[in-house]
């Protein structure tokens, strides 16, 4: 028992923090919200070089092996710096695809590139696939243009994607249970889980219609289960379950980072801002409110780390609900203690303020997490 980050882990977290602090992530987030993804993708490249996106990809596909604890450190940094983009979704897609390629042919049937959308062949060969299937090929493909997939069968294609996720070269998004696929317009791969029992995995041809989120750096798409049927079988549903767990974990870590950023900025503000002749931070009501924010965050983070160690669904649910609520507590306090300026989009604070509630509800609402914890969900 040593429930402490080791030196390497602390270094990793510190490195990411410095990297992102130097990278002007607020500008990237604002540009992303305007539909300009260049700065954001540049950020992703730097994070990929630091190894963040390899943390959910097995070594066989150029990943770091699956390292959930390190992943939570990465996502806490992403949250702390308001990094835009479908990062959680790319992790979830990576977990899903690697589960699929590991599953046997009884569990998952892959598209073999030679049949139409309904006909599924056996899983492809065991070795690494060509990996060279251009993403453009599949995105262009509708049900009537299946010939474009001849460059690789489904399993090989999945393997190729995994390498590209690990290198930060591809962004993915995922739609499950009729929910939203985040940033499907910019994602290189849009996956849609469909079918009565969630056993179909589609490569969507189109991002579908968009809806705005409270966080303008997030755009919510509803791609249809159409395009190419990448895989089918009970292994898809099982893989989605694992993907959800990782998605919830990464979101919880991101929420802790968002909460920390909000707390730090608010502490900084109330130390400087003066009203009635004194620093706002000297009022006891202000102090106590910020003490409660710290309390919420300090008791959320250990839950996130423990969930990463066990990957147990109840542990993950505990981490998700607690981190999400802590971020919202931080947001409410930050808004209140900044006064009117905090209510504007001009202040960078808004980049975090608007993220707290979406992260609380994405990848497992508090209600669904609590239901799982008491065993009714």
């Amino acid at each position, binding site marked *: 028992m040593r429930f402490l980050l080791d030196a390497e882990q602390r270094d990793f977290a510190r490195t990411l923090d410095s990297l992102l602090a130097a990278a002007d992530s607020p500008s990237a987030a604002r540009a992303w919200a305007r539909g300009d993804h260049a700065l954001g993708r540049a950020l992703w490249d730097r994070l990929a070089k630091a190894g963040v996106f390899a943390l959910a990809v097995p070594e066989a596909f150029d990943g770091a092996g699956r390292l959930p604890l390190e992943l939570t450190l990465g996502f806490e940094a992403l949250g702390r710096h308001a990094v835009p983009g479908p990062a959680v979704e790319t992790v979830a897609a990576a977990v899903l695809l690697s589960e699929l390629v590991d599953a046997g042919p009884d569990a998952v049937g892959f598209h073999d590139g030679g049949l139409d959308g309904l006909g599924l062949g056996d899983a492809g060969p065991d070795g690494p696939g060509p990996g060279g299937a251009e993403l453009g090929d599949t995105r262009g493909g509708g049900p009537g243009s299946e010939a474009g997939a001849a460059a690789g069968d489904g399993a090989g294609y999945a393997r190729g994607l995994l390498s590209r996720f690990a290198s930060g070269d591809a962004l993915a998004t995922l739609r499950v249970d009729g929910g939203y696929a985040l940033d499907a317009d910019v994602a290189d791969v849009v996956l849609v889980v469909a079918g009565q029992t969630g056993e179909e995995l589609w490569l969507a041809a189109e991002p579908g219609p968009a809806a705005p989120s409270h966080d303008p750096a*997030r755009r919510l798409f509803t791609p249809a289960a159409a395009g190419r049927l990448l895989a089918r079988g009970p292994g898809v549903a099982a893989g989605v379950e694992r993907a959800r767990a990782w998605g919830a974990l990464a979101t919880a870590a991101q929420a802790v980072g968002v909460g920390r950023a909000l707390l730090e900025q608010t502490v900084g503000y109330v130390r400087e801002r003066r009203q009635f002749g004194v620093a706002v931070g000297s009022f006891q009501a202000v102090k106590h409110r910020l003490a409660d924010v710290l309390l919420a965050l300090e008791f959320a983070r250990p839950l996130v780390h423990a969930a990463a160690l066990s990957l147990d669904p109840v542990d993950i649910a505990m981490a998700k609900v607690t981190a999400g609520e802590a971020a919202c507590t931080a947001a409410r306090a930050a808004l209140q203690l900044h006064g009117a300026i905090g209510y504007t*989009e001009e202040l960078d604070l808004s980049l975090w303020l608007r993220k707290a509630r979406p992260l609380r509800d994405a990848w497992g*609402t508090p209600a669904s997490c609590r239901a799982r914890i008491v065993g009714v969900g």
Partner: protein
Amino acid sequence: MDLTHDAETEAFRGEARAWLAAHVPSAPLPSLETREGFAAHRAWEAELAADRWSVVSWPEPYGGRGADIMRWLAFEEEYYAAGAPGRVSQNGINLLAPTLFDHGTQEQRARVLPPMARGEVIWAQAWSEPESGSDLASLRSRAVRTNGGWLLSGQKTWSSRAAFADRAFGLFRSEPGLPRPHLGLTYLMFDLRAPGVTVRPIGRLDGKPAFAELFLDEVFVPDEDVIGAPGEGWRVAMSTAGNERGLTLRSPGRFLASARRLAALWGSTGRDPAVGDRVADALIGARAYQLFTYAGASRFAAGATIGAESSLNKVFWSEYDIALHETALDLLGPEAERADGPWAEGWVFSLAGPVYAGTNEIQRDIIAERLLGLPKGRR
């Protein structure tokens, strides 16, 4: 003690209900914090005014119906129950008009109020300045005497509606250097399109320009647009602030309607028993707020003034409003993330409640000091 409106009020209520049923737009107007929505809401004000429903509590000569506070409350209940649009004129009607009735001249009332009632002139408030948020008395914008009027210079901020409004009102320091900061302030009205005025809209959290910064550079204001005596602005404004924080800032009808919508949402989303208690609390809170307001209105009708208990009112509705909207978002589950849903704008709006019109921290200080008699001064 009774809770039965008299026959006159009920008749008035019935008339309002019938008019609203015939006139309220079937689809919601676009947000009033957008250019398009502002215009649509201005048109709605004109439609209200055409049948004398825009300022029911004003005297008839100014476009009102001389409704007493009970009829005003009844009107508001019907107004929100009908799902009628938000009031783009509220700064003028709720903040400036009471000041003009109390402190303005006959000429000012005749000139300013009718176009306000018809939505022809929409007013922005211009209280805050960058360095004086909660601490209003520390204002620094200046009003300098000139021939036949005053020259305003300085900066105002958090001027709600100013992005698209026509005119504004606020306090300016006309006699600097007096021993207390509340002294030497003058209450003025000015044109947002006058030479020397620069309006810089500020986006609120959802990006809509709900307020603006105003940069004033020797903006001429004629003497006729001073309210009350020069230098007496603080006293004049405080009667407005008392009004703002009192019974009329948020009418109970608004929350009764919201609570009913919440209960309907709960019903239509499967009556989740884990959320039932919070739905009950929303229904209770709306009723409690209505009753608290009725009690205040009854005291008011009996000749009392609204004092520090308006701080209770402010804290209650602002925290109630957030809780109600967060319950709605929780019922929506992952759908709640959509910023374009019917509950989304209400939620964003509610978040500002505990901050503006006197932060809830200050309101609680006032409650503790003035209503409970706890020692003043340390915070």
